[in-house]
């Protein structure tokens, strides 16, 4: 049976991708940010996942307003990155895991999450920047990926509670996957930031720190919030926190905080990083299908 090893929540700011491309990670502006990642990389090297479920939001690379799925799951053998229009270098393709993708799709729809399935899916900086950050050495990326995109572009957005429930269903689906593989869930986005309107530049350190604390031991304090609450407290783009709640839902129950970091600013954004181990999580002892 597959084992869910843990979850990582990280910001995905495009400027990080540019800093990596230019090799400026050690400059004073970037050093405090990049220095927070080695403990997570060491953990990843230790657990060495076979598959990574990437929960993120597309910013107008794969999806446009003509068709905007609330939840979309990739089911492709590989995922291409492409030109996003404002200069981030295009990265080589990322390997998929279609077998795990279709298992997730089957289980999620069974759990009444009627996802859009994508056999072709371009992945943008929200997918690529965290992978570059977490696995800087491409030769170490032996895992396949399953992209799960959540709409944060066009309201109505799925509520924090709904995203947490989606995560729980992802966790159950991983538990019931018959292959003997290790899986890590990565959520990307946030923390507080707002790019548009007279409130552009809005950052809310108090709220971010509240989220970083509550998501570990009391995630339901956050799932009670509405999307409107999140926009007000975290900014129009800070709503990306819903991806973090999905990752936390996948680990539902008690978790172990293994690492966290918070840094202001990266570009216009408060950058957050959180590593949660599944050690406190009850792993199923029987096939999930028997319990459905």
């Amino acid at each position: 049976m597959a084992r869910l090893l843990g979850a990582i929540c990280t910001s995905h700011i495009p400027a990080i991708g540019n800093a990596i491309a230019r090799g400026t990670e050690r400059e004073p502006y970037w050093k405090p940010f990049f220095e927070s990642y080695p403990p997570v990389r060491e953990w990843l090297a230790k657990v060495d996942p076979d598959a990574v479920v990437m929960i993120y939001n597309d910013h107008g690379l794969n999806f446009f307003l003509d068709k905007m799925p609330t939840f979309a799951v990739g089911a492709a053998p590989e995922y291409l990155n492409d030109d996003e229009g404002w200069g981030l270098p295009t990265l080589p393709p990322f390997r998929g895991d279609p077998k795990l993708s279709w298992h997730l799709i089957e289980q999620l729809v069974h759990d009444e999450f009627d996802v859009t399935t994508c056999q072709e899916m371009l992945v943008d900086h929200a997918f690529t920047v965290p992978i570059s950050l977490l696995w800087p050495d491409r030769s170490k990326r032996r895992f396949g990926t399953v992209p799960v995109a959540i709409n944060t572009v066009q309201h109505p957005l799925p509520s924090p509670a709904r995203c947490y429930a989606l995560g729980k269903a992802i966790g159950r689906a991983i538990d019931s996957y018959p292959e003997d593989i290790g899986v890590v869930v990565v959520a990307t986005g946030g923390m507080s930031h707002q790019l548009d309107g007279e409130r552009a530049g809005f950052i809310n350190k108090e709220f971010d720190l509240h989220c970083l604390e509550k998501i570990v031991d009391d995630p339901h304090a956050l799932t009670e919030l509405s999307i409107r609450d999140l926009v007000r407290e975290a900014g129009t783009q800070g709503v990306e926190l819903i991806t973090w709640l999905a990752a936390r839902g996948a680990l539902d129950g008690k978790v172990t905080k293994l690492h966290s970091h918070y840094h202001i600013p990266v570009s216009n954004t408060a950058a957050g990083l959180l590593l949660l181990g599944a050690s406190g999580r009850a792993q199923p002892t029987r096939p999930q299908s028997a319990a459905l």
Partner: protein
Amino acid sequence: MTPAHATNEIPGTVIFDGAEAQKGYALNKMCYSFNSAGNRLAFKHNEEAYCRAYGLTPEQCDAVRRRDVLALVRGGGNVYYVAKLTGIFGLGVQDIGAQQTGVTVEEFRARLAAAGG
């Protein structure tokens, strides 16, 4: 910390909902086309013609001409798409942040750094 479940508007903030998405559809569709380098070139070659081809309103065309990000947002532009347009003008997210808040880029950056204090 218990954020209030207020229903009133959030100052200086547009919720990009169905009404905005309808109002800004043509503008956002044009911006989405700028994922292609060829389309960025075509826009630079003749901005007015490019805007007209996508059916932008006169107000939206004017906002593009003036590089006025607040007017683009008020015209239904979603910042994820609008950023592809402003990128053509060499404006990054800090430039557009400064422009929308009426401060210099240096002041805007200082404000962001101060949020960590």
